């Protein structure tokens, strides 16, 4: 029982359909608090779809139907009583391509808190500084907060997007291939940052890059054709995969 409590996100018998297409098949995952969990697998295996189910971004897709349950801190997020705004405040998201808004750096970070009702300028300034520090980019940006976010490099933009997600003080950070559009050096910086974030947040990251999973993730789930084939500690999975298909994938025989 004590062990159950440490699971931040629990996915139970999750089935997801895009129209006729059965995209996620009977997913069961217990994602521990304060750890990095990686979803790996070939393109189209459902790992991003599964991630987006956790903050209900799939609601926006037409013809998307979801069965099963996802619990965050024991509450079912697909329960009709769930406030989606609060859910998304609790589970912040970082996307594959950096997507800062066409506004100043400050306004980008302050956008989330403003949505959630914070108007006081002092308080916003505080949050912006704390978030940018949290994303390890304060020193780079502190003198150009008024400048457009579009002037930043890709890696800086992605860290700004992480800061934007941190500003709403989430418990969980969902990252959808956050480094796939970045160069190796920026990637390394983001990975370092993720290791930092792990101390305070539950991080779930979708990645194409298996080395990345071994470098940063405590636990790894391997997805294939909409199913979770294997889910275990990252070390164990990469050293000693149980399923033949996992072994084939991580040794580079396909995918």
């Amino acid at each position, binding site marked *: 029982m004590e062990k159950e409590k440490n699971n931040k996100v629990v996915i139970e018998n999750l089935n997801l359909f895009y129209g006729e297409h059965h995209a996620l098949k009977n997913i069961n995952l217990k994602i521990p608090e304060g750890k990095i969990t990686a979803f790996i697998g070939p393109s189209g295996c459902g790992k991003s779809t599964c991630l987006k189910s956790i*903050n209900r*971004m799939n609601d*926006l897709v*037409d013809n998307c139907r979801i069965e099963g349950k996802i619990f965050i801190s024991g509450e079912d997020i697909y329960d009709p009583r769930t406030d*989606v*705004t*609060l*859910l*998304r*405040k609790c589970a*912040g*998201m970082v*996307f594959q*391509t950096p*997507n*800062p*808004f*066409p*506004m100043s750096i400050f306004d980008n970070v302050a*956008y*989330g808190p403003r*949505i*959630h009702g914070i108007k006081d300028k002092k308080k916003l300034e505080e949050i912006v500084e704390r978030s940018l520090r949290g994303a390890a980019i304060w020193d780079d940006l502190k003198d150009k907060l008024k400048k*457009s976010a*579009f002037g930043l490099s890709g890696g800086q933009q992605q860290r700004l*997007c992480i800061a*934007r*997600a941190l500003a*709403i003080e989430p418990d969980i950070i969902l990252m959808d291939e956050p480094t796939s559009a970045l160069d190796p050096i920026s990637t390394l910086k983001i990975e370092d940052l993720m290791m930092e974030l792990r101390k305070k947040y539950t991080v779930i990251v979708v990645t194409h890059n298996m080395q990345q999973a071994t470098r940063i993730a405590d636990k790894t789930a391997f997805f294939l054709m909409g199913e979770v084939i294997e889910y275990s500690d990252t070390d164990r999975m990469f050293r000693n995969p149980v399923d033949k298909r996992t072994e084939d994938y991580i040794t580079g025989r396909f995918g």
Partner: protein
Amino acid sequence: MQQIDKTESDVRKNISLYSKRVRKSDVVLKMLIYFSALLTVGFFILLIAYIIVNGAGYISLDFLLSSAESDGLLPIIINTLYVEFFTLIFAIPIGIGAAIYLTQYVKQGKFVKLIRFSTETLAGIPSILFGLFGYAIFCVLFGLGSSIIAGCLTMIICVLPGIIRTTEEALLTVPNSYKNGALALGAGKFRTIFEIVLPCAVPGILTSVILAVGRIMGESAAFLLTIGTGTKMPKEVFSHIFSSGRTLTLHLYYMSGNGSVPDAMKICFAIATILLILIFVLNVLAKLLAKKFIH
């Protein structure tokens, strides 16, 4: 296959790189392209120069500000401003609202296709038909008579399709990633649209507005049957919309057929020059504003 490849590359080895040839067809095509471009620009310049040369001389402050009832221009300019204002103040919000609905809210399907098809068809209808419709509905059925307001209501229908189309296109070019970013932070749909999507589409929307301003200024057929021929100065600011009042283009039309006014043709060219200048200023304004909004 491989055999052939090999011999070809062998042949190539013996040819110097300095064997560039100028093909005759290329030269002819290039000249044709230059000629088309030159012709277009040439006609444009000729047209503008002709109008300005003939009209500019007649324009003076007296001419612009004369409020004499028979041939004073000031009431006509005021009428035109009235028409612009009262058409746009309704057409812009309705058009933007419709475009938001069509791109952000309604499920894409047969219904939307039908609406799109209707707006496209409406945009292509000769404006005299709008005039006829406006006359039957607004002037006669609503009892507004030949009046500025009847002209404005008719003009709203004329410019709406254009505003909707251009705004739709502007809204659709806003990357979905902005929308997703805002939604993922917990912003509601309404907030996302008004704070993120709409501001990004401002340059496009502005273009649609400026195009509408130009269209209204240049329109004559839709007003011909609805707005009357009045040339009086407004007595009261608001009640003026219920009186008959011709616009600049209509004035040009009536003047050109009016033999009793001396210098009628000169007045026509002067009006044309004023219209040209106004359209030019509007276009420059649109460009500048659009630039200001692009980050």
